């Protein structure tokens, strides 16, 4: 599904002493099949922007079109929209509520009008997808799971509705390295075809570099750049101005370049970079 954002603006508590401009004149397009990273410091408007995509926040100014649905119209078919745009909040394990994992995962599908059998099948599929054994966890209470498992169960709860666009807000925040790996492997699997379009909000530039084909940068509610990760990390003005980090691989390449050693590779993880460096020095 294609998402078109046109001149979007949003103000919190307008006309009060607490008025705050959250988004200002944002225009960009997310194409079908994109894995889009949204980056910027805390408070730059990333979450506000994403909450527009499934009308959790209604359009104040400007236009958004998701597939065929015009979100700036007076009446929006929320059910269809929210079924198609799945949204994973930060620390999603905090929204688990049902007495069994299965019921929790089926909550979305049943709300969106799946039949009992369809919901059951969707829950199985989603739990498999996130790497949880259906038979083992289905009848467990979600609160008995470990931290990483809870996170994955919560993700399954979003995937079960089979959205065509998936928005992930800081999906790895607070997880330990293994938990992180598991989530990132899942994102890779999703990219490989389960979900058409993935949007990731993240502070972790290593993740953005590794997973996204496009990235938009927000600063104080304004769109600062709409580009590819590779190009973004070449724009030191933007990276430094918005207090983003460089991915470590990029930082190492930059440090080497300063010393006159140029590594001509778009390597974005440690192993690729090692191979590139080894290749250069062995030759």
């Amino acid at each position: 599904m294609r998402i078109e954002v046109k001149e979007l603006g949003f103000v919190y508590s307008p006309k009060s002493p607490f008025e705050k401009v959250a988004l200002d004149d944002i225009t960009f397009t997310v194409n079908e099949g994109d894995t889009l990273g949204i980056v910027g410091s805390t408070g730059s408007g990333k979450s506000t922007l994403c909450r527009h995509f499934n009308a959790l926040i209604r359009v104040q100014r400007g236009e958004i079109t998701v597939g065929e649905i015009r979100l700036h119209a007076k009446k929006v078919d929320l059910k269809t929209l929210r079924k198609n745009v799945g949204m994973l909040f930060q620390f999603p394990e905090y929204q688990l509520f049902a007495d069994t994992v299965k019921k929790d995962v089926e909550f979305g599908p049943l709300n969106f009008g799946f039949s009992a059998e369809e919901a059951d099948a969707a829950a199985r599929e989603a739990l498999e997808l996130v790497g949880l054994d259906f038979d083992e966890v289905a009848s467990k209470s979600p609160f008995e799971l470990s931290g990483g498992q809870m996170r994955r169960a919560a993700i399954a709860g979003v995937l079960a509705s089979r959205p065509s666009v998936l928005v992930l807000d800081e999906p790895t925040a607070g997880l330990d390295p293994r938990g992180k790996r598991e989530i990132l492997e899942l994102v890779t699997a999703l990219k490989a075809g389960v979900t058409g379009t993935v949007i990731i909000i993240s502070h972790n530039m290593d993740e953005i570099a590794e997973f996204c084909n496009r990235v938009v940068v927000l600063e104080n509610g304004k769109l600062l750049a709409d580009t590819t990760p590779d190009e973004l990390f070449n724009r030191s003005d933007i990276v430094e101005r918005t207090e983003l980090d460089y991915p470590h691989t990029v930082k190492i390449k930059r440090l080497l370049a300063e010393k006159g050693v140029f590594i001509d590779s778009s390597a974005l993880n440690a192993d690729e970079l090692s191979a590139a460096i080894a290749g250069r020095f062995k030759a």
Partner: protein
Amino acid sequence: MNEEKSDACGKETAPLPEKENDFTTELPSGTGTPSDNAPVIKAEGVTYSYRSGEQVSRGVTGVSVEIYPGEFVVILGRNGSGKSTLAKLLNGFLVPDEGVVTVNGTDTADDDKIFKVRSEVGMVFQNPDNQMVASVIESDVAFGPENLGVPREEIETRITEALEIVGMESYRKGSPNRLSGGQKQRIAIAAILAMRPEVIILDESTAMLDPKGRREIMETILKLKNEKGMAVVLITHYMDEAIGADKIYLMCDGEAIASGSPREVFSNEEAVRLAGLELPVAARVSLNLKKAGLDVGFALTDEELAEEICALK
């Protein structure tokens, strides 16, 4: 929460190869332990298990830790490795089943002196929102000293001092509600500092923060160590936060499977793998290059790695 039983490290109880790396010998290790002083905190052969009804789950087993004045110590491990249990044993929140923990010579099992222990070993937690008791920052910072019966005039100076170290003096009269996570956590640190502890333990205090917040906390830690000569114990699963430590304890399944300077611990590939952690990119690349037959020393930071690689030319 998050007490996850891991199979990865639990089953492999074979003794670990000790320092089989060849890097550490040729490189200076850490900044050196001030071993001439007495440790502030000393834990010897500490074991603790959680009991709920019939169920017993192991927290930590036979761990010994020494924290010296002015040291920055990192306790590293993934969720469920026992790192938080260990932290809570160090200030008397938990009392060991076996072994002894002393703070300046006082046994933490001594109920009558527990407040002495807690005022000497301060602790900051994971979620900054859950540790503030007042809606005005200075009142929140005053809470600890008030509880200790510190005279009013002195509380005043302590607040100023504590907020200055963490760089939040200008927010003194404000509300914590609109601060960033890193700022809130700095207030939480100031609230502990106002009690003038000798050691401050940060129990996963960086886990919920964004990179900027984490940087702020790491800068604060170094300031406390360098300017105040305080001992800081950081509990974390981010290996990159341990790079600047004087000493690391690497926890896995309730045991300290390795300890020493960052260089010693990080280059112990086997232990890092068992602990389920991820080496910083620079360290990984340097190890890869060495395996590929290049003459590259073990690098902890991106800068070190760049130096090493340039030396190849």
